[in-house]
Every structure is written in C-alpha cells, then in structure tokens.
C-alpha cells in the first residue's frame, strides 16, 4: 500500500475510503447499517454467532443496500448482545437480547416492516456528548480506512503542517484538558514541561493499566477506536519532541492488545507512524508493554519501574517523570481517555472544547456505571452533569424498585456518596470536596441491601492486597484498617474502633509515598462520615442493618411458617428441622439450628412468597 505523504494525499485516501470500503460512513450513504458490538462484553455474550447470522441472512435475501459492520462498544452493556440498526436519514435504534434466530428476524422482519419486539424504546444516545467515545460503536475498529473516513489522522496532519510543536502545546494548554486518569493534572502543562526540556531523547507513554475495579472505559476505547489513541500519542510525541512511545497495557485485556498491534501495523504501513511521518521528517515509533497484574502500576512512577523490568514500586518525587522518567529521561505519561480527547481538540480547536462542560473542567468524562443499576454501561457526559441525571436518566434507575443508598466513585481511591448529594454536578473539585474523587470514572451504584462497612472492608481488602509494601503507612496502616473493619463486621467492634479508623486513616493519607496509599483510606473515611449510624449499629447493637455481614446475621423462621418443609429440603447443610410445636394446619413449625447454619441464605427465597416466614435478624 502506498504511503500517505501529505494532507492532500490523506484527503484523497479518505475520499477513496468513503467511496469504497467505508461507504456506509459517508453522509449521503443510502446504506442501512447493522452494527454488532464486538468488544469483549459483546463477544462474551455471543456476538460472533449473531454477526454470522446477520451476514448470512442479508446474503440469502440478496439485500444490496444493507451492510453488517462489526464495531466496538456502544456503551450499552446491559443490553448485550447488542445490535444497532441505522437506516439512512433516521435515528439509530438498538435491539437487545439478540440470539442468532432473532438476528435473522431483524433482517427479514424489522428491515421490511420497521417493527420487532426486540427493539429498545430509547433511540440514540440521549443527553450524552461523545468526544472520547465519538467513534466507538460507529466504525469498524479493525479497519484504518474507517478511522480515516471519519476524519482520522487529520489532527496529526494539522499539528505537523500547520500548528508546529509550540502551537500544539498552546492549543492543549488553552483547552484546559485535565488528566482523565483521575488526578486531573492539566495535560497542556505536562506537555509543556516535556517541550521545554532540552534532553535529546524523551518518551511518551500511554497508561492503559486500567486497574480500578468497575472501570472499563479505557478498554472500550482501545477495543473500539484504537487509532484515535495512536494518533494522539503521535501528536504528543511531536509536541514534546519524543520519537518513541510506549503503551503500558494490562495483560487482562487480550482483545485490546490484539487490536492495538493490528492498528500500529496499519498506521506504519501508511506512513502515519514510524519513520518520516507524512513526509515531514518526524519519526515516531510505538511499542506495547504488558502489565502483569499489579494495581499500583497505574501510579506513573511505579509504571516506569515496571517498564524497566522491575517490581512496580513507586519512586520518590521530585524528580517528576517529565524531568527524569523512564531510564532517567524526560517522560510524558497520559491516560487512554485523556489521549482520546486530543485529536478532537486539535481538529476542532480549544474554544470548541471549552464550550462543553464547566469553566474549570471543560469537556466530558466517561463513566462506567455498574452495580445495582438497570443500564450498566458506559456514558460520556459533559463535566458538571448531576449524579441524578447519570443514575436515573442515563442509568435507568435501580432494579427491583430498591432504594438508592450510595454511589461509589473513584474505585478503591474514592468514596461513597450518599443520597443527599445526588444533585451535585460532577467534576474533579466537587467530588474531592466530599471526600471522594473522580478516579478513572468508575461508578458503582449501591442499594439498601449493601452494607457500607462491608463495602469499605471490600476496598481495604483490595488495597491491602495491592499495596506494593515499599512504605510503612500504606503497608501496615492499611492492614490495620482492614483488621479493624473485619472486627466490626464480625460483631466484635467498639466505638473506640471507629475513632481509630478516622485517626489512622488520616495518618495514612498524609504520610504515604504514592497516590495508592494517599487515597486508600477514602472508602473508610467517607463511609464513616456519611454512614456513621451504620457503623454504630454494627458496634453497639452487633447488627448489620443491610444483612450483608454474615457473621452478624441470623436467619430465623417466624410463626408465619406453614410447615411445608421446602426450606428444610433446600438447606445444603441440613440444619432446618420440624419442632414439636403443631401449627393450625396440623403440620409442625420448623426451626433453624443456629449452631449449624452457614448463613448461605439458600432458604430465604425458597420460602413461598405468600408466606415469607424466614427473616434476617
């Protein structure tokens, strides 16, 4: 394939793609597109069989103007496997819960009559504003033609031929884009540090070590639009004067890794990466390094050690990586989602970007909604959008009519936000002001069945396990926090324990070496702050109101029992037996032997719904 050597040649390539293999992406396309979400979740839910069935049926019916496109994640994970149907000049509709059979029906029934009971009522993406995810679910991520057809690599061309190095840095500074990995450091400023450094060799790194449990936007971007991130890294390399870029990506994301390798090879073949990019003399080589399962490697100095083949322990700062990073050389490190914003900013300008979001935090943020919420998935919203809009409007509220209790943001580094703050607009400052943080954008919704002490313990278990062990406050302090929480959830805590949690948590925050330790106590401190009563019930009454702390729970059969024995037959440890007491219907009242009960909860749903004789105490 011929290399692209100028903006004119890029435009020619784009027009050829729009007239050829990427025809369905043209504005005046008369083709009906059937998209099949084929990111990790889609494939796990069976998308491959659906894709084949759709293709087969289209062929069988001899439909010329229908095209089936494998694409990345549309963010509507709750509806997987998901098919999106876009007819010319119409809003797209989504079909959910598809099997290979219904896939055939989409072609034979929906395309002909416009009806089908598998079509979701909500069209399009609602109030979302998609910048980082703008191509996810729209293009085929395995084809560079598709990316170029929607304007890809034009930002790189503009940077190389019009803006120049200083111009790119200025535009990025003006845009006020802040790091989407969680800390929110201004990206333009970081790039300027690199730009001003005279060292001849520098590095660009993309942090794709998305270890925050419950966050998966980086995976979705890399699986659904890999070229977007490659282009941004090349722009960063040009601006700071680096000829080498490295992806540090989790080994747990095999599909993303595969797509990145393919994308790099495609871009190199066209001369959009590698040597003498677009004939401008700028060289930029990208490589991929796999992580090996250590949460702390998301911390940028730990990541550098890991790239050097060492244990992923953080370094003392200063010197900052922009001064002395990988192999002691200046290194600029940004997160995947941060990069995903860059090409759009360069193409459309900082002023456009600043028109979205809030004054201090322009742009959007992708949130991964999970937990007790109807529409589990990714949403991209302008900064400042309220939690209520995110949970109820985009997330569709909580399932089973349960009450909203809290939302956890920022993963193991963040905190739990109670219902009273649900109307708060979300940005870096507002979340920080109530003891949580943006983090990478995971949002876990919790309902009345979730115990806040148990959740705090869950996160501490995680940070304790993931602490690298280099500094004492984090290694020992977090272990002590966990032990105290463990005591409380087992009904052995006291009020003094709660005071100790607060004091110790503050010490760990103030004295730990890196971001992991600095933020590890947040889940504890925020739950103690907002849900103190729940802690007090645990330590004073030795009860868990949510019924989640199993050691404090007792399953008891009340006198509503009708003696049917269903519970006894379903008890895995055989600890439910009839008593001597006769019931009005002549059968015997049953009872649970508390010494043998393993609190599995198996009996509770088995008791007939009209009777509900089993309760949790």
């Amino acid at each position: 394939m011929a290399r692209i050597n100028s903006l004119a040649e890029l435009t020619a390539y784009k027009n050829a793609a729009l007239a050829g293999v990427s025809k369905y992406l043209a504005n005046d396309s008369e083709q009906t597109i059937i998209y099949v979400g084929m990111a990790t979740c889609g494939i796990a839910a069976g998308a491959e069989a659906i894709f084949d069935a759709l293709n087969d049926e289209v062929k069988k019916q001899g439909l010329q103007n229908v095209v089936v496109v494998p694409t990345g994640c549309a963010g509507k994970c709750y509806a997987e496997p998901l098919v999106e149907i876009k007819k010319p000049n119409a809003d797209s509709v989504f079909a959910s819960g598809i099997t290979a059979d219904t896939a055939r029906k989409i072609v034979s029934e929906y395309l002909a009559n416009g009806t089908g009971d598998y079509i979701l009522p909500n069209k399009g993406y609602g109030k979302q504003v998609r910048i980082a995810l703008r191509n996810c679910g729209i293009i085929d991520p395995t084809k560079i033609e598709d990316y170029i057809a929607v304007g890809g690599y034009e930002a790189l061309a503009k940077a190389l031929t019009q803006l120049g190095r200083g111009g790119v840095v200025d535009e990025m500074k003006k845009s006020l884009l802040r790091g989407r990995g969680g800390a929110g450091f201004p990206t333009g400023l970081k790039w300027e540090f690199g730009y001003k450094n005279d060292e001849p060799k520098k590095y660009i790194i993309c942090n794709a070590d998305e270890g925050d449990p419950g966050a998966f936007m980086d995976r979705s971007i890399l699986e659904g639009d890999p070229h977007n991130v490659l282009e941004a890294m090349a722009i960063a390399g040009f601006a700071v004067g680096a000829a080498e870029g490295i992806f540090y990506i989790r080994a747990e994301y095999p599909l993303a890794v595969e797509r990145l390798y393919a994308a790099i090879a495609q871009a190199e073949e066209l001369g959009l990466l590698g040597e003498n990019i677009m004939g401008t003399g700028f060289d930029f080589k990208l490589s991929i390094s796999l992580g090996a399962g250590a949460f702390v490697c998301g911390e940028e100095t730990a990541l550098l050690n890991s790239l050097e083949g060492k244990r992923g322990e953080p370094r003392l700062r200063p010197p900052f990586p922009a001064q002395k990073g990988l192999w002691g050389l200046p290194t600029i490190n940004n997160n995947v989602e941060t990069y995903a914003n860059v090409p759009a900013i360069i193409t459309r300008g900082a002023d456009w970007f600043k028109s979205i979001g809030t004054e201090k935090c322009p742009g959007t943020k992708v949130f991964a909604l999970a937990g007790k919420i109807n529409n589990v998935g990714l949403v991209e919203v302008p900064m400042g959008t309220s939690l209520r809009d995110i949970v109820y409007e985009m997330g569709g509220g909580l399932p089973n009519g349960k009450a909203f209790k809290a939302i956890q943001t920022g993963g193991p580094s963040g905190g739990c936000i109670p219902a009273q703050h649900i109307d708060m607009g979300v940005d870096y400052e507002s979340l920080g002001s109530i003891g949580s943080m943006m983090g990478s954008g995971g949002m876990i919704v919790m309902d009345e069945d979730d115990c806040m002490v148990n959740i705090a313990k869950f996160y501490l278990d995680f940070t304790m396990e993931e602490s690298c062990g280099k500094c004492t406050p984090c290694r020992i302090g977090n272990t002590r926090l966990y032990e105290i929480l463990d005591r409380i959830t087992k009904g052995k805590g006291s009020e003094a324990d709660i005071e100790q949690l607060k004091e110790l948590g503050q010490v760990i925050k103030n004295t730990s070496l890196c971001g992991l330790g600095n933020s590890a106590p947040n889940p504890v401190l925020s739950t103690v702050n907002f849900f103190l009563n729940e802690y007090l019930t645990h330590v004073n009454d030795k009860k868990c109101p949510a019924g989640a702390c199993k050691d404090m729970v007792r399953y008891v059969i009340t006198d509503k029992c009708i003696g049917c024995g269903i519970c006894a037959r379903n008890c895995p440890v055989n600890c439910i037996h009839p008593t001597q007491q006769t019931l009005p219907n002549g059968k015997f009242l049953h009872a649970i032997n508390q010494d043998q009960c393993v609190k599995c909860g198996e009996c509770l749903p088995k008791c007939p719904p009209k009777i509900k004789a089993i309760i949790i105490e």
Partner: protein
Amino acid sequence: MNDLTCFAELDTFIDALPTKKGALISVLHKAQDIFGFLPTEVQDHVANKLDVPASKVYGVVTFYSFFTMQKKGQFRVNVCLGTACFVKGAQDILDEFKKELGVDTGGVTEDGKFSVDALRCIGACGLAPVITVNGKYYGRVTKADVKGIIAEYSSKGEEANG
C-alpha cells in the same frame, strides 16, 4: 511439549529480543505462556539468559499477581472479584466453586483437572458477575450455574484423556 523444547522455545524468544534491557517482564510473560507456570528452574534459566540475579527474577515473579509459581489445573476457573461483580454476588459464586471442587482459592483439584482463582476486574462489568474458564467468558453467572459449568469441562477432560 517436553521441557527441552520448552526451554529451546524460550531461548529463541530471548535471543530475538532487540535489547535485554528492561525485558524481564516480557520474558516472564513468554515463559509462563510456554510452561504454564514459573517454577524456580525456569526462573534460574531466565536469570542466566538475561544476566540478572535470580533474586531479582524471584522478586518480580512474586510481586505481580499475573505470574504464578504453582502449576494450574487443566481447566483454570477464574472468578472476577471486581467491585461490580462483588456487589452482584461474585463471592458466593467463588465459594460455590470452592465447595463443589473441594479446593481453596489458588488451589488445584487432586486430579489436576481444575484450579480456582479470584481475578482482578476484567472490565466486563456489564455482564457481572463474570467468570472465565481457560479464557472463555461466562456472564451473569448464578450459583445454580456452577455445577453445570463444572460438568461441561469434566466431560471434556475425560474425552481428552480417553
């Protein structure tokens, strides 16, 4: 594949590296791909080839949770314990696997057929709770599904052996 060919394959990989500087982790990834786990003999071999102390190799292997020094089962069950899976009952699923297979987390069944591990978030939160068996994903798993999943592989194992 016997040990000799395994070591030969690993050596080919190492000799083809553009530089040995900083290559330890990618070499260990490759070694675990080939051997299935990283026993001390493999670690010593890597240390010699890369000219780094064996203690450093051991330090790295034990630091990263992806690396294991224990041989895994023929079928590796991984239960995701990310937050989304946790609030949807992943702990119960893990307990059920442990109960049904009679092993602890990280353990291998006596016949070497199954191993059970807890995994860090695999980012498929939309399908929570999620488990994988030898890389194949199972979404929205319930406690009742566990026996069926085990049975699916038990019979496969017999076919393979028989």
